[in-house]
C-alpha cells in the first residue's frame, strides 16, 4: 500500500500544465533543429508529436528529457523553472523517456531491469516487494509481463512494456516515447494505445513521436506538428483530419511530390514485364553463420535488366546476409555468384561496386557513412578512382556530380562541409541514395530503403526505383513493408530461415499466402511458381 501512495504525488486533475517549453533553440552545425519552439504538455493527455524526418521532433523530446541541452529557451516543470541538465534531473522531476533503441539489459530479468532503474533501491533488494509492485502496476495499466522472465526472451512489444513499467515504478508522471509503434505489430499497437488511455485517465501525460497519421488520429488528444524545426501547429483531436495534418507537415504542398516525372512514371510495377539479360545470379548459394547470423541455404535468385525483384520476409531471416553475399562482404561456401555474366564469387567489394552495383544498406549511419567526416568527404567514399586527380580528389567535379544527383531526385542538397552526423536520419538516407545513384548503376541492392523515411521521401524513393527500373536497371528490393513490395515488385521472393520460401510473378501473390510463408507457416501448395 505504501508503494501505491508514493506513486501518486500528482494531482489527478487533468489539464494541469506539467511541462512547458518556451523559445527552445537548438542548432547543430548549420542545421537549426529547433527554432524557437514553444510547447506545452498537460496532465491527462496523450500528445502526439508529428513531423517529417528532420523536423526536429527527436531533438525536442531529447531536450525535454534533459538528454540534450538547448542553446536558448527555458523549460518549466509544473509551473516552475527547471533547468534540465541531464536525464537525472528530468527523472527527479517525474519525466521519463522510452528511446527507440531500448535501454534494457537482455541478460537480466524483467524485475532486475526495473530494480536497477529505481531511485530508492535499498542495499538489500527485496524481490518480493518489487515483484508485487510490478504486478500491481502491470494489472492496473494492462502491461502484463512476467517479472522473473529474462528480457532477452521477451518479444519487442513486451520489452516496450518493461520500459514503460520501469518509468512508472520510478515515479514518472510524464512519459516521452520516441516512435514507440515503429517496432510493433498491429495488434501490439492497439494494446499500446490501450495502455495510453488508462495512463491518461489517471492523470499521466504521454508524449509520443511518430510519423504515422492514422495512429495519431486514433490515439492522440492533441497533436503538435513540427516542420523544419518550428511548430507548424497544434490541433485538438476534434479539429484534425488527415489532409489537415498533411498540409501542416508539408506546408500545403503535399500534392507536389519531388522527383516525380510524368504521370506514368509512378513507382508501381510496369504492366508488361519484358526484361533483359541477367545482371545478378545466385546459384545454389549457401553461407556459414556465426553467432546471431542466419546461414543462407541453397539460394537461387536472378535479377535481370529492367526488373524489380522484391524480397519479403521478417528481418533476421537472412536478408542482411543475402545483401552481404552479393556485395562480397562474405563469400559463398556453396554455389556461385554471377554478376553481368561473369563468375564474381571471389570479387572484392571494390570490384563489385565498380562493375555498377549500388548498395543501400539497412542502417546508413553505421554501414554507409563515416559520422566524423563531412558530407562531401562521405560522398567521395566508395566512388573508387572516379574522382581521382593526381594524388588528390577532384572535389569540384565530385560536388557538381553529387549536387546533380540530389537535384535529380528532388532531395534538398545538404551543407556539403557540415559533418554528416549533423544530418537527420532521413537526410542521411537521402545522401546515401544520392551517392549510390550518382553513377547510373546497372544493379541496385536496396535494403529497407524507405525505413525511417517520412511519407513524402518514401514515395520519392519508390518513384526513383521505379524510374531507374524503367530505364533498364535491375533492382533487388529487400523490405519488410509488404505494401511497398506489392506495389513495386515485378517478381517477389519470400525469405524464411535463410532460404527462399516462395517465388511469385506479379499478380500471382496474395498477402495471405506471402504472410504465411514469411512466418514459416506456408503450406507447400501455397507456393506459387513464377
Amino acid at each position, binding site marked *: 500500500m505504501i508503494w501505491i501512495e508514493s506513486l501518486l504525488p500528482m494531482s489527478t486533475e487533468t489539464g494541469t500544465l506539467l511541462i512547458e517549453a518556451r523559445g527552445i533553440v537548438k542548432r547543430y552545425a548549420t542545421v537549426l533543429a529547433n527554432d524557437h519552439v514553444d510547447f506545452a504538455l498537460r496532465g491527462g493527455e496523450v500528445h502526439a508529436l508529428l513531423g517529417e524526418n528532420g523536423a526536429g521532433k527527436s531533438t525536442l523530446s531529447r531536450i525535454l528529457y534533459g538528454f540534450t541541452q538547448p542553446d536558448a529557451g527555458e523549460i518549466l516543470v509544473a509551473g516552475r523553472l527547471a*533547468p534540465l541538465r541531464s536525464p537525472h534531473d528530468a527523472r527527479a522531476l517525474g519525466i521519463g523517456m522510452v528511446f527507440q533503441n531500448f535501454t534494457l539489459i537482455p541478460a537480466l530479468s524483467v524485475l532486475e531491469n526495473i530494480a536497477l532503474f529505481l531511485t530508492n533501491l535499498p542495499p538489500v533488494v527485496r524481490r518480493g516487494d518489487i515483484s508485487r509492485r510490478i504486478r500491481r502496476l502491470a494489472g492496473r495499466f494492462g502491461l502484463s509481463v512476467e517479472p522473473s522472465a529474462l528480457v532477452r526472451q521477451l518479444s519487442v512489444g513486451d520489452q516496450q512494456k518493461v520500459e514503460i513499467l520501469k518509468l512508472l515504478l520510478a515515479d514518472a508522471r510524464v512519459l516521452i516515447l520516441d516512435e514507440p509503434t515503429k517496432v510493433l505489430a498491429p495488434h501490439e499497437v492497439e494494446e499500446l494505445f490501450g495502455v495510453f488511455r488508462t495512463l491518461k485517465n489517471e492523470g499521466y501525460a504521454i508524449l509520443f513521436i511518430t510519423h504515422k497519421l492514422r495512429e495519431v488520429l486514433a490515439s492522440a488528444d492533441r497533436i503538435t506538428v513540427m516542420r523544419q524545426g518550428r511548430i507548424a501547429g497544434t490541433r485538438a483531436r476534434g479539429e484534425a483530419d488527415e489532409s489537415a495534418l498533411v498540409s501542416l507537415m508539408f506546408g500545403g504542398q503535399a500534392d507536389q511530390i519531388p522527383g516525380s516525372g510524368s504521370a506514368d512514371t509512378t513507382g508501381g510495377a510496369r504492366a508488361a514485364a519484358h526484361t533483359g539479360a541477367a545482371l545478378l545470379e545466385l546459384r545454389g548459394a549457401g553461407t556459414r553463420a556465426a553467432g546471431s547470423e542466419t546461414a543462407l541455404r541453397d539460394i537461387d535468385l536472378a535479377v535481370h535488366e529492367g526488373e524489380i525483384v522484391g524480397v519479403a520476409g521478417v528481418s533476421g531471416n537472412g536478408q542482411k546476409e543475402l545483401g552481404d553475399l552479393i*556485395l562480397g*562482404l562474405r563469400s559463398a561456401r556453396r554455389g556461385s555468384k554471377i554478376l553481368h555474366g561473369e563468375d564474381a564469387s571471389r570479387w*572484392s*567489394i*571494390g*570490384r*563489385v*561496386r*565498380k562493375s555498377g552495383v549500388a*548498395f543501400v*544498406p539497412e542502417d546508413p549511419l*553505421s*554501414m*554507409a*557513412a*563515416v*559520422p*566524423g*567526416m563531412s558530407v562531401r*568527404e562521405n560522398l*567521395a*567514399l*566508395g566512388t*573508387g578512382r572516379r*574522382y*581521382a586527380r593526381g*594524388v*588528390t*580528389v577532384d572535389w569540384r567535379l565530385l560536388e557538381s556530380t553529387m549536387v546533380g544527383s540530389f537535384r535529380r531526385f528532388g532531395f534538398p542538397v545538404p551543407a556539403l562541409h557540415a559533418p554528416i552526423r549533423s544530418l537527420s536520419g532521413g537526410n542521411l538516407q537521402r545522401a546515401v541514395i544520392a551517392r549510390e545513384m550518382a553513377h547510373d548503376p546497372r544493379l541496385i541492392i536496396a535494403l529497407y530503403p524507405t525505413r525511417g523515411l517520412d511519407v513524402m521521401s518514401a514515395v520519392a524513393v519508390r518513384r526513383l526505383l521505379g524510374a531507374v527500373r524503367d530505364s533498364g536497371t535491375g533492382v533487388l528490393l529487400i523490405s519488410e513493408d509488404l505494401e511497398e513490395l506489392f506495389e513495386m515488385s515485378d517478381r517477389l521472393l519470400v525469405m524464411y530461415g535463410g532460404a527462399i520460401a516462395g517465388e511469385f510473378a506479379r499478380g500471382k501473390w496474395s498477402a495471405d499466402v506471402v504472410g504465411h510463408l514469411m512466418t514459416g507457416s506456408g503450406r507447400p501448395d501455397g507456393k506459387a511458381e513464377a
Partner: protein
Amino acid sequence: MSAGLSAAASVRRVISRAPLFLRYLFIIALALGIFALILVAAGKDPFKAYADTFAYTFGNVYGFSELIVRMIPLLLTAVAVAFPARIGMINVGGEGQLYMGAWLASGGALALSGFPAWALLPLMTLLGFIGGAVWAAIPGILRAKKVVNETIATLLLNYVAPMIISYFVFGPWRGVESSSYPQSPAFSDGARLPSFFNTRIHVGLLFALVSLLAYWAIVEKTRWGVQMRAIGGNPEAAERLGIPLVLYMVIVMAIGGGVAGLAGMGEVSAIQGRLRQGLSPGYGFTGFLIAWLAGGNPLGILLMTFLFAVITSVGDILQITQGLPYSVVNILMAVILFVVLGRRSVRRASR
C-alpha cells in the same frame, strides 16, 4: 549558483577556443606548477630547478642544439604512431621498429664501407626505412588476417628487436678494434650523416620534418587520406564502400614503421657512428605518448615533441644540479599525462 556555473563554463569556453599553442602552454604551466609542489616536498627549490633547466636548455646554444637533437627521433617515432592511428591501428612498436631500422642501416654501412657518402647514405636511409617497415608490416599482416591484435604484436616485437641487435653486436658484427665492448666497428666516414653548424643536429632533422609534413599532407590532402580517415572513423562502412581495408592496414603500418626506422638510422649514422646495444633510451615509447597526447595533430606533435625534449633534459639537469635521481622525469611525465587526461574528461563531462 547558476552564475558561478556559467562563469566556469565561459572560462572553459575561452580555453577550448584558444589557439592550439596557448592550450599547450596552459597544460605545461599547470603541469610545472604541480611538479614544483613535488620538488618542494622533496626539499628542493623549484625556482632554482626551473632556472637551471632554462639556463641549460635555452640559455646557451649547445643546450638548445641538444634539445633539437633529441627531438629528431621523438618526432619520427611520434609520426610512426600517428600515421597508423588514423586508420584506427595502435602502433606501440616504435621502439622495436627504430631498432630494426638501425640494424638494417648498420648492415648496409658495414657491408659497403668503401662506398662514398653520396651513394651509401641514401642506401642506408632506404635500408633504415625498410627495416622498420618490415618490422611493422608483420603485426599489420597478422591484424589484417585477424590473427593477433596489432597492439599486442607491436608491443611484443619491441622486446625481440633489441635481442637481434645484441646477437649481432656480440657475434658477427663485433668490432675488432674495441672487442671488449659489444658493439660494431665504427662506420666509415661515408656512412656518417652530416651535421650542421658544429653541433650534433644532423640531416635526420630534415627526415623528421619532411615525415611530419608528409603525414599531414597525406592524411588531409590526398584521396588516400580520405579513405584512411574513413577506415579510422567507421571501418565497417569503409569496407562496405569497397575500400581495401587489408591493404591499408599492412601498407600504413609499414610506412609508420619505416618512419620509426629512419629514427634508428639517424641515431646510428649521425650520433653513435656504430651499432651498439641500448641505442635508444625509450624514444619509441615517448614518441607514442607524444602522438597520443597531441591527438594526431601535426602542429601538436611538433609542440609536444619540443616539450618532451625539454622534459627528458630536465632529468639530466636536475641530476647534476640538484642531486635528484633521473627518474623524477617519470613524475613530470605522469603529471603532464594527468593534466591532459583531466582536461579531456572535464571537457567530455561538460558536454
